[in-house]
């Protein structure tokens, strides 16, 4: 590694202070005479760099999209799930069957003396299944929830009708709020308000229809929503006595850390938990989500970039191969140059510069291609995902790619260049 750094240093030195103009003239002349060969040789580098740029760009766009969504949730939003913090697949399974979040817990959290900064709380449930009306059947996302939270969190308000109320929740009312897509699938253009739809053999009266908003987050398309009171979903649709999650709003963002501690204390007290390790619940704040998403997207981007980078190694091998050909072709020239006074290192630099120039040209073409592809991809993804998707390309990715390209040239050019530099002048001159 140290030697590599030394090489880089020497080459920079050479480029800046020595007769680089002539070397470049020579090298470029050589590459021009072998245009199609040079082009094919750098193709591997072009593709490798382009895919690295593309993946890094998409990764960055995805990350900023998801983060912006999390931010729309608001800084005062907190979520509680039963079961301890998942660290592996078995933990995930535990959570699915965890039943530690029931009315008793919700009531305890609602108590101002337990959690003073909590201003609102609602349990939430997902109901698998489909909905039907007349002959039409549709598979929506069915939520047991407080419908007015759509307004509180996502600023989505009914287009027709009104959200069901606290009374409907208390009385386990058979009422439903439906998304625009659900309405269209079941009712077409006819009126839906007041009609009765069937979920799991139970009839629900449509009390509100949502405007078409599409994806309110990467995970939820509000147009496919059916929201029913969580009490109704719990008892009649799922037949359970616990909740899958609870959503909480704090007084303000600053109050969140203190409130989280209050919630923990309340639940631990309620469940007689002494050691935090034994917690049968876990709390997620926007900060946690942002941290996790950043981690996930970073890991994914690094992973995909590494896969793309493999093509750079393949490209590098191609460069090495063609450099070996070039060295063989120029055997007599090497002999002549040595006869005229070239030292071993002059020959070495000559070929190193040739391979680095090749890969840098490939890198530049790859960057251009990668930026172009990323832009095209962003056009397509904007159509698919929505206006939240933005074309992003970082300058650091571009410089990194260029550096990597040069490094590939240096590493894979070293062996052929060394081979050239060690040729005996007289044998090289005799070469036919």
């Amino acid at each position, binding site marked *: 590694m140290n030697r590599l750094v030394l090489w880089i240093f020497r080459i920079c030195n050479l480029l800046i202070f020595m*007769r680089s103009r*002539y070397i470049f*003239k*020579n090298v470029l*002349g*050589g590459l021009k*005479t072998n245009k199609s060969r040079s082009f094919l040789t750098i193709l591997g580098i072009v593709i490798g760099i382009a895919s690295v740029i593309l993946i890094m760009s998409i990764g960055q766009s995805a990350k900023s999209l998801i983060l912006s969504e999390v931010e729309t949730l608001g800084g005062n939003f907190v979520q509680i799930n039963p079961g301890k913090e998942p660290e592996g697949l078995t933990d995930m399974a535990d959570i699915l069957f965890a039943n530690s979040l029931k009315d008793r817990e919700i009531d305890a959290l609602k108590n101002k003396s337990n959690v003073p900064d909590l201003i609102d709380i609602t349990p939430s449930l997902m109901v698998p299944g489909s909905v039907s009306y007349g002959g039409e059947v549709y598979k929506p996302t069915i939520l047991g929830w407080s419908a007015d939270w759509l307004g509180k969190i996502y600023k989505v308000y009914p287009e027709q009708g009104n959200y069901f109320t606290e009374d409907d929740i208390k009385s386990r009312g058979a009422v439903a709020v439906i998304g625009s897509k659900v309405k269209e699938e079941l009712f077409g253009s006819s009126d839906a308000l007041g009609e009765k739809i069937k979920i799991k053999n139970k009839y629900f009266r449509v009390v509100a229809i949502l405007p078409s908003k599409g994806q309110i987050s990467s995970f939820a398309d509000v147009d496919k929503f059916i929201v029913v009171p969580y009490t109704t979903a719990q008892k009649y649709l799922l037949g359970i006595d616990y909740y899958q999650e609870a959503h909480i709003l704090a007084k303000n963002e600053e109050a969140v850390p203190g409130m989280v501690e209050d919630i923990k204390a309340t639940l631990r007290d309620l469940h007689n938990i002494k050691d935090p390790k034994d917690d049968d619940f876990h709390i997620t704040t926007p900060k946690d989500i942002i941290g996790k998403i950043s981690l996930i997207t970073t890991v994914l981007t690094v992973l995909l970039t590494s896969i793309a980078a493999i093509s750079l190694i393949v490209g590098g091998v191609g460069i090495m191969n063609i450099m070996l050909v070039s060295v063989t072709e120029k055997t*007599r*020239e090497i002999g*002549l*140059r*040595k*006869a*005229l*006074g*070239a*030292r*071993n*290192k*002059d020959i070495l630099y000559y070929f190193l510069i040739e391979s680095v120039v090749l890969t840098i040209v490939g890198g530049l073409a790859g960057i251009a291609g990668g930026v172009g592809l990323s832009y095209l991809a962003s056009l397509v993804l904007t159509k698919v995902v929505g206006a939240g998707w933005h074309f992003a390309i970082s300058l650091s990715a571009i410089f990194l790619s260029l550096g990597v390209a040069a490094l590939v040239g240096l590493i894979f050019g070293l062996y052929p260049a060394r081979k050239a530099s060690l040729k*005996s*002048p*007289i044998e090289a*001159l005799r070469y036919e």
Partner: protein
Amino acid sequence: MSLIRVENIEKIYGQGKNETPALSGVCFKIEKGEFVAIIGPSGSGKSTLLHILGFLDKPSKGKYYFEDKLINEYPDNELAQVRNAKMGFIFQTFNLLPRLSVLDNIKLPLYYSHIKESLWDEMSQKAADAVGLTHRLKHDRSQLSGGEQQRVAIARALVNNPDVIFADEPTGNLDSKSGQIIMDIIQKLNDIGHTVVMVTHEKYTSEMAKRVIELKDGKIVRDELVESRHLARDGFKK
């Protein structure tokens, strides 16, 4: 001080059973300003000797002193520098680089020298003048005849004003008209003080030098001054 002094030079190619001696026990001196032709049939070791004299190859045994310094002790890099500063090479096959113009070909040794870049053009121009190629500097190799290519090669050998010029069959690939021009140039270079060591297998060409060393089977069989020297300007026979 002799420019070149060799003592019992041996060169053996191959190893073990395949050992073939190319030179066995060669001794001579060359002084500054001499014009020496090394002659002999093919396989006599004359090219090997020239390569050793020009630092392109190393003797297997024996001592070679260049300007009284034993070259066996020079590291490779220093050999390259001596080659660059004090020696010029002319090859039978010219060995011009195809991608470069005449001027750039002549400049080639200067890349590897300590001479300031600002002087390169002037020096190359001067060397081109000396071989009568002043008007062809921008041309490409393919636009030149064999004789002209060899003149470029001579200019290249001259450009850094070397002490000694090594010529390996300089007229071997040329017709007699071009050969005459080339030999005339080489004789003139010798006249103005350049030491010339030339390998040839043609007796007539060897008699254009001032001294002939004849090799046979890797040994010197004759080393004498030329009695009736041919001058290229009077004619040339192949």
